[in-house]
């Protein structure tokens, strides 16, 4: 049985992390040289400026202006995004536009990575230290070490510019045609997936190798169950806990951490909005973006813990 106490304690820690991360940002942003008025506002006259500052709670000290932002954030009000030239957009509309894109891309990346890495993990573990394993493992190692933007630039050049096979810029929503949508996402998804599925397969391989040494596997084999059936039915499930944890940890990073891939392929996801906010000096919007990533990080951590409990019942009594 789950211990309620432990869950509450774990959630409390995660909440502390969330508040800490956003407060840290608020603090860092207060270190900016000059007054907040120079950065956060875009009104032309002094009076308009003062009003904007007041409405954002920036005339108060760090703590109370942070609380001001926090209460707005919890209520779903992500603050204004001041465009140059005096116009203002609510940050929430930007979030509604970019987050679904990022989530969709993340979903494709995870599906593709898991689809490729699970068979590779099974093969390399089953043929551990044989020729096939050596070759695949070396390739996987190299794949996991290549920086994502190097892949993005190289793939973009060969597949996009040289062979003219795929578009290299922009995002097409599903509503404008699913084929076109997928076509625009092939390059970014590939350049995010290759390093990811390489590291997934490596994790799976080492887990499977240690599971294969356990008694219940010997038992299953001695009962005459075929090797492939033992691998898929008996070994894969208890070996997948580390993979689930790693995949969940990557989710948060993939939503906003793909800044550079977003930028290279001009996808308009949350990553690109983060860069834009940094350069437009919209630090309050930035604070909301990063808070969202931290929330996602926490949600996926909790979900993965629950998933592990379902996949591997042995962990349920273990201390969290």
């Amino acid at each position, binding site marked *: 049985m789950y211990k309620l106490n432990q869950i509450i304690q774990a959630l409390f*820690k995660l909440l*502390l*992390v*969330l508040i*800490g*991360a956003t407060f*840290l*940002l608020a603090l*860092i*942003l207060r*270190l*900016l*040289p*000059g007054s907040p008025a*120079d950065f956060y506002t875009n009104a032309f006259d002094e009076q308009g400026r003062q009003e904007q500052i007041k409405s954002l709670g920036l005339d108060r000290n760090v703590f109370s202006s942070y609380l001001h932002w926090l209460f707005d954030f919890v209520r779903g009000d992500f603050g204004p995004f001041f465009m140059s030239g005096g116009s203002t957009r609510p940050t929430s509309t930007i979030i509604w536009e970019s987050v679904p894109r990022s989530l969709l891309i993340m979903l494709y990346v995870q599906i593709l990575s898991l689809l490729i890495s699970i068979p590779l993990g099974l093969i390399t573990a089953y043929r551990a230290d044989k020729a096939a394993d050596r070759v695949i493992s*070396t390739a996987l*190692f*190299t794949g*996991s*070490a*290549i*920086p994502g*933007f*190097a892949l993005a*630039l*190289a793939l*973009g*050049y060969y597949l996009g*510019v040289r062979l003219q096979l795929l578009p290299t810029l922009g995002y097409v929503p599903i509503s404008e045609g699913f084929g076109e949508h997928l076509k625009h996402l092939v390059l970014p998804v590939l350049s995010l997936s290759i390093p990811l599925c390489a590291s997934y397969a490596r994790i799976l391989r080492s887990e499977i190798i240690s599971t294969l040494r356990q008694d219940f596997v010997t038992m299953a084999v001695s009962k005459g169950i075929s090797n492939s059936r033992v691998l898929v039915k008996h070994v894969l499930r208890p070996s997948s806990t580390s993979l689930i944890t790693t995949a969940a940890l990557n989710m*948060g*990073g993939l939503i*906003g*951490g793909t*800044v*550079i891939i977003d*930028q*290279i392929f001009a996808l308009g996801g949350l990553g690109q909005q*983060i*860069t834009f906010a*940094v*350069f437009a*000096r919209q630090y309050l919007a*930035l604070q909301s973006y*990063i808070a969202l*990533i*931290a929330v996602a*990080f*926490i949600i996926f951590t909790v979900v993965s813990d629950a998933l592990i409990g379902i996949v591997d019942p042995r962990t349920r009594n273990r201390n969290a």
Partner: protein
Amino acid sequence: MLRNLGFFSKISFAWLSLMLFFAIAGPLLPLPDPSEFSDALGAGIFTSGHLLGTDLNGYDLFANIVVGSRNSLFIAIISVGLGSLLGGILGIAAGYLRGKTDYVLTIFFNIFLSIPNLILSLVLIAVLATSPDPTQTVADSRRLVVIIISLTIVIIPILGRITRGSTLAWTNAEFVVAAKSMGMKDLMIIRRHIIPNVLPSIYAVAFLAIGIVIVVEGALSLLGIGVGQGISWGSMLARSQGDLEYAPTSLFVPLTFLALTVIACNQIGDALRQHLDSRESKL
């Protein structure tokens, strides 16, 4: 220890040594001036006089790589060195003292780790290397310092968490418990028993961290907030990103050097970790 390493680790070691040699002895090598134009624009590799070709401005790519290795490795080694030192101290404190110190430090590490590392350094650089007047730019030397500081801040929690875990494991080891029960002072135990045992895992992660820092530096340059006018592999990438169609070599040469260096760092870090694992399983 080098003798025990596999084939790939040896190659990686050789590659990193070569890069270090470039970084240290670069100016002494008989190479074209990295900031001098030549008539060959966008030449391919192995063109006469230009070993790795030139970019669209006619700059010699090999000379730029050699000069750039200095900035790229300098940033990586300093920030990882500082980060490992501070992260190591905090990690040992958390793992050895446990209790409240551990609780607070772990939450502190998790706070930093919950912000993706590229975004954290992006924000830090944006904040620390910004002048109040948007029309004025910040001096390059200050930029370099800011980049190193922000990358150090990114590295501290990564190293801190690993060191904490390793310290926790060693604190429970019998010889540490024995030393404690014999009345050995805590600082002495840490110096004699904890640090020598924790150091190898710090080394292993530090190599991985060097890889991370090189990638982040490249990414920052691609976003346009790298080392300013100075030459680094990242800034070479940023400069030639737009010339991809006309002079692909000017992009692929720095990309290859960067990727190979990161792969070499990962390979060595990984080999060190495996070496450690097998040592610990024998205990």
